[in-house]
């Protein structure tokens, strides 16, 4: 055994942290860059879609608020009354074994005004004197 072989080997810092191969380092750099780019694009796309959908939601809300300006509650009530008449007709047709006669839904005030105006106009058309209110009779009996 020579003297040189007996000397302890000195391992410096460069040996411990070996520098990788240049090709591998380049590939790693490209992969890291691509991954970062992908994450950034994902986040940008997410933010863009979030902004678009939030904007759409706000626009829908604004559109609804705009639609709610017209008509007023009186006209809205007449539409709702029409829907209630439809609903009652459908419900009573399904439950035809009812033991009592139905009660008509109360009329909205605007509809009463329309009824009175139309009644008066009908009477004008018939040439008779207008009456203040519709007659109080019930539906005539079946034959």
């Amino acid at each position, binding site marked *: 055994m020579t003297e040189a072989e007996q000397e302890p080997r000195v*391992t410096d810092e460069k040996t411990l942290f070996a520098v990788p191969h240049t090709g591998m380092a380049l590939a790693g750099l490209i992969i890291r860059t691509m991954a970062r780019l992908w994450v950034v694009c994902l986040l940008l796309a997410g933010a863009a879609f979030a902004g678009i959908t939030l904007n759409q939601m706000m626009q829908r809300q604004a559109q609804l608020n705009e639609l709610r300006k017209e008509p007023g509650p009186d006209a809205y009530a007449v539409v709702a009354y029409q829907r209630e008449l439809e609903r009652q007709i459908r419900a009573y047709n399904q439950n035809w074994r009812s033991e009592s006669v139905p009660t008509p839904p109360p009329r909205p005030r605007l509809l009463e005004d329309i009824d009175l105006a139309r009644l008066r106009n009908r009477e004008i058309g018939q040439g008779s004197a207008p009456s203040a209110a519709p007659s109080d009779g019930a539906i005539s009996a079946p034959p």
Partner: protein
Amino acid sequence: MPDPEDNISGLPEVVRNSNRPIIIYQGPPPGQLDAPTTNAVGLLSWLTLLTICLVAIALSVWTVWNPGHDQTQFSPIYAQGQPVGLAKRIEERQEVNARAEGLLEYLERVRADNLGRRRSGETHPLITDRDGVEDLRSQWDAMCRSIRARIYDRRIGQIDARLSELRAYRRQVADPVERARVDGDLAGLTEQRRAELDRRRTDSDPALRCVPAAQAPVCSDASAEPWCNPQHGRPDEFRAEAS
């Protein structure tokens, strides 16, 4: 006994004199430990931001396109209740607005014709068209008459059935006293049937009188029906009411 100065950095003599390589770990190079920590925090930040974006997207889409209906809330358009999603609510409101458009103007025109004592040819789809209020009222009145006729038929049918039973029983009875009692019952039932037919013909049973839908009571301020005072039940619908 070795001299203390020979013990370099506390290495024992036996190690110093060995032929093995001596590796002294002095920690990672400067900045080596910071990188993984920074990367982890960065990744968490990206993920948090991405999650916030996804939540915002999901919330917005759900708010607009929610297909559900609130069955406890009356809807003037949908039978299954008020829609929850903004898109459906817009559809509902557009339908309401389309149906009610020009209703006040229609009333004003009819009133103007009345003042001028002219026969009005004015119409409004909500009132005069097919499935309008007038048509539905006719259907409602017909339905009421039909229900009433069925009730009378049922009552008369029950009396007829009882009469048939009594007549069959009378044919089997030999006892004159019992026959006289059955005859009395038959006469009573016959009279009851005649009275029922009279009530049906003259519509004299107040419990079975059909009030025409056009003559129903008018809504008051205290009426709780959703079509009477919609501004009380759902003020949101008229938040920005036009002046």
